[in-house]
C-alpha cells in the first residue's frame, strides 16, 4: 500500500496523468458546448458584431457601437426607445428633432434636445458628409432608396445600416426595428416588443380576417387636408395596411398607390367614406371636414366619424415602435361592436415598457387628440368615463 503514497511511483504518475487527461477532455468538451450553446455570449466578449441590413449586406463591427447617427425620421425615437436613452445617439434628422420638441419625447428624453441635427442637406435625406465625419460615428442608419443616399457615406469609409423607406407592411416595419435592435445589442428588448406586436395582431386579425366586404366600412386616411391639398392614402402604404387590419376597406386603394396623390372634393363625395382618419403630420383637424359645406353629405361627416390620428412618442400614422397602439385605436373606431379594448390602460402599459415613463391623465388625452376628437362618435370610449 505504501507504494501508492510514493509520489514518484509509476502507478501514481499514471493516475495523475489519467486525471489530467479527463480534466482536459472535459474542459475541451465544455468549451465546445459553450461555443455551440452560447454563441452570443462569446460575441459580447470582444468578438465582432455582425448586422445584416435591409439590403442583405452584412456589416461588421469590432466593438459595441457607441456613436450612432440616424437619418430616417422615426429612427431617432426608435433608437432611444430600444436603448432606453439617448446616450449613444450623436446626430439625427432635423425633422426627428422637431418631432421630439413638439411631442411627448422632450419630457421623456430631455437630454436628446441638445443632439446635433445638421447631418442632412436641409430637410432632405441627402447626408451632409462634412458634419457627419466631424461627429466620428460608428454607424449611420439610413434609408436604402435611392441608393446614392448610402453610396456617398460608404465611399467616405463610414459604416451604414440601410432600412427600407416608409415600410408598407408590418413585416418590413418589424425587420427595420429588429435590425436596429441587433445593432444596439438589445435583442431581448426588441423580442419583447415583437411579442407585443404579435399578440395584438393576433387578437385583431382573428376577428377582422373573417369580416365580409359588405360589413367593412369604407374608410379614407388623409395625409394632408389643407394647403397641401386633399391627399388620401392609396395602396401599398402602412396606413392602408392598418385600415384593412382594423376591419375597414380603404376606398382610395382601388385607384392609386402611395401618399402623394391629391384628389378633389367631388372624388371624396363619389367615394362617400363612412370613416375618415386625419393624419398627424398635417395641421388639419376633423373640423376641416365637419365645417366644410361641400362635404356635409358624406356619411362620415353626418355620423361624426372623423378622427385625428394620435401623436405620442411618434406620430401614429406610419410604422413605428408604437404601431400596435394604432391598430387597437383604429379597430375600436372601425368595428366598434367587435372590439372593446381598454386603450388608456394599454397606452399606460406600453409607455412604461417603451419609455419607462408614467403618463398622466392629461398626457393620455393629449396623445389621443381629445381636444379635436372628443366630440366625435364613439370617442367617449377613450375618455375612461363611459
Amino acid at each position, binding site marked *: 500500500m505504501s507504494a501508492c503514497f510514493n509520489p514518484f511511483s509509476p502507478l501514481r504518475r499514471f493516475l495523475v496523468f489519467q486525471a489530467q487527461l479527463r480534466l482536459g477532455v472535459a474542459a475541451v468538451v465544455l468549451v465546445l458546448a459553450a461555443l455551440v450553446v452560447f454563441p452570443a455570449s462569446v460575441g459580447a466578449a470582444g468578438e465582432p458584431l455582425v448586422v445584416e441590413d435591409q439590403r442583405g449586406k452584412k456589416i461588421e463591427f469590432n466593438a459595441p457601437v457607441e456613436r450612432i447617427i440616424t437619418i430616417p425620421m422615426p429612427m431617432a425615437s426608435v433608437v432611444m426607445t430600444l436603448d432606453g436613452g439617448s446616450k449613444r445617439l450623436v446626430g439625427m434628422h432635423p425633422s426627428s428633432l422637431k418631432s421630439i420638441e413638439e411631442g411627448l419625447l422632450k419630457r421623456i428624453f430631455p437630454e436628446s434636445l441638445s443632439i446635433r441635427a445638421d447631418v442632412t442637406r436641409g*430637410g*432632405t*435625406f441627402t447626408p451632409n458628409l462634412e458634419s457627419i465625419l466631424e461627429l466620428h460615428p460608428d454607424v449611420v442608419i439610413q434609408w436604402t432608396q435611392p441608393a446614392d443616399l448610402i453610396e456617398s457615406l460608404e465611399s467616405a469609409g463610414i459604416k451604414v445600416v440601410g432600412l427600407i423607406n416608409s415600410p408598407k407592411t408590418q413585416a418590413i416595419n418589424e425587420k427595420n426595428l429588429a435590425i436596429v435592435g441587433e445593432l444596439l445589442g438589445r435583442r431581448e428588448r426588441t423580442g419583447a416588443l415583437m411579442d407585443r406586436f404579435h399578440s395584438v395582431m393576433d387578437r385583431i386579425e382573428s376577428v377582422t380576417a373573417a369580416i365580409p366586404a359588405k360589413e367593412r366600412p369604407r374608410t379614407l386616411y388623409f395625409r394632408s387636408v389643407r394647403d*397641401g391639398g386633399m*391627399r388620401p392614402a392609396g395602396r401599398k402604404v402602412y396606413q392602408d395596411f392598418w385600415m384593412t387590419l382594423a376591419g375597414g376597406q380603404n376606398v382610395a386603394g382601388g385607384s392609386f398607390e402611395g401618399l402623394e396623390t391629391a*384628389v378633389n*372634393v*367631388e*372624388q371624396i363625395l363619389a367615394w362617400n367614406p363612412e370613416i375618415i382618419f386625419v393624419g398627424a403630420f398635417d395641421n388639419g383637424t376633423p373640423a376641416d371636414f365637419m365645417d366644410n359645406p*361641400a362635404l356635409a353629405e358624406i356619411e362620415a361627416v353626418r355620423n361624426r366619424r372623423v378622427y385625428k390620428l394620435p401623436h405620442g412618442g411618434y406620430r401614429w400614422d406610419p410604422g413605428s415602435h408604437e404601431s400596435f397602439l394604432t391598430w387597437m385605436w383604429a379597430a375600436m373606431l372601425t368595428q366598434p361592436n367587435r372590439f372593446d379594448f381598454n386603450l388608456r390602460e394599454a397606452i399606460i402599459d406600453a409607455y412604461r415598457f417603451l419609455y419607462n415613463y408614467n403618463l398622466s391623465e392629461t398626457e393620455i388625452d393629449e396623445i389621443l387628440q381629445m381636444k379635436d376628437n372628443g366630440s366625435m362618435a364613439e370617442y367617449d370610449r377613450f375618455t375612461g368615463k363611459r
Partner: protein
Amino acid sequence: MAKRNPPLLTASGAKWALLAVLAPVTMLACLGMGRVDLGVGAVVKVLLSAAGWGANPDSFHYTVVFNARLPRSILAVLAGSGLSAAGSALQGCLRNPLVGPQTVGVLAGAGFGGSLMIFFTLHSFWVMAGAFGAGLSTTFFVVWLARKSGPSSVLMLVLSGIVVGTFFAALTTILQYLADPETQLPQLVFWLMGSFSAVTFSKVGWVVLPILAGMIVLFAFAFRLNVLSCGEEEAMALGVPVYRDRAIIIAAVTVICAAVVSVAGIIGWVGLVTPHIARMLFGPDHRRLLPASALIGAIFMVMIDTLCRSITAAELPVGAITAIVGGPVFISLLRRSHAKGWRVD
C-alpha cells in the same frame, strides 16, 4: 398668301356668335361632367332651383354642383380669361409674340412670395397675400431695372424680367430644399404646381375684383395698344405717351397674374397659347382681340380644369395639363397659319 379678302362682316359675326354660344354651352357641359355622374339635366335643375324656379333638387346633386364644381369653374373662367387677355396685351405692347406673363417676372415672384408664407407655416390667407404682394413688387423691380438702363428698351425689359424671374425661381428651389419634407414640402410642391381643387367661393371673392379691374383697364387701353404695337417711334410721333401707357398696361397685367397665382398657383401656357388662337381668328386689332382672347381663354381653361378633375381619381396638376394640351395645339395652329395675325406691318 398676298391676296387679302376684305373682312366680311358676316364671317366675323359668325365667329363672334360661335364664341358667344360656345362659352355658356361649354360651361354648362363641364358642370355636368366629373367623378360623380350627374348629367346636364341635373345641373340645369340645380341652377334653375337656385335662381328660384322649379322644384327643390336632390341635396347631394346640389352639393356637387354648387360646392364641388361651381366655385372652381368660376375661378377657371376668371383665370383663363384674365391670363389670356394679359398675354395678348403684353404681346402687343412689347411687340413680341413670345412674351407672356412669365416674361415680366410676375409668376416667379408671386410663386416665391407664396412659398415663403408656406415655409413660415402661415394661414392660406397670408399665402395669397404674400403671392400677390411679391408678384406686384417683382414686376415693379423689373420695370425699374429696365428704366435704369435707358428709356427705350423693350429688350431690356424682357431681359430683366427673365433674369429676375430666374432669380426668384432659384430662391423658391432653396425654400423647397430647406422645407420640412414631412409637413411643408408637399404643401409647397402642391401649391406651386397649380390647382383649382382647393378653391372655395370665399377665395373666388378675394380675387374677382383684381382680375376684373385689370381686365377693364386692358379693354380701355385697347386702342392705345393698337398704336403701341405699331412701334415705339410711330406711337411717339402720334403723340402717345408710350412709357406711361406701357407702365399702366404692365401694371394691369401684373395685378391679374398675381391674383391668379395667389389662389391657383403657377399656371403657364394659357397666356401664350390662347392669345395666338384669338389672333388667328380675329386679327391684330386689340379692340376685338382682347375680348376674343378672354372668351377663348375662359373656354380653354374650363375645359382643361374639367379634364384635371375628371379623368382619374387623382387630381391632375392644371399647370402641367395646360402645357401638355396647349403645346401640340399651338404647334399645329402655327403650322397651319404661318403666323397669320402677326402681319401688321
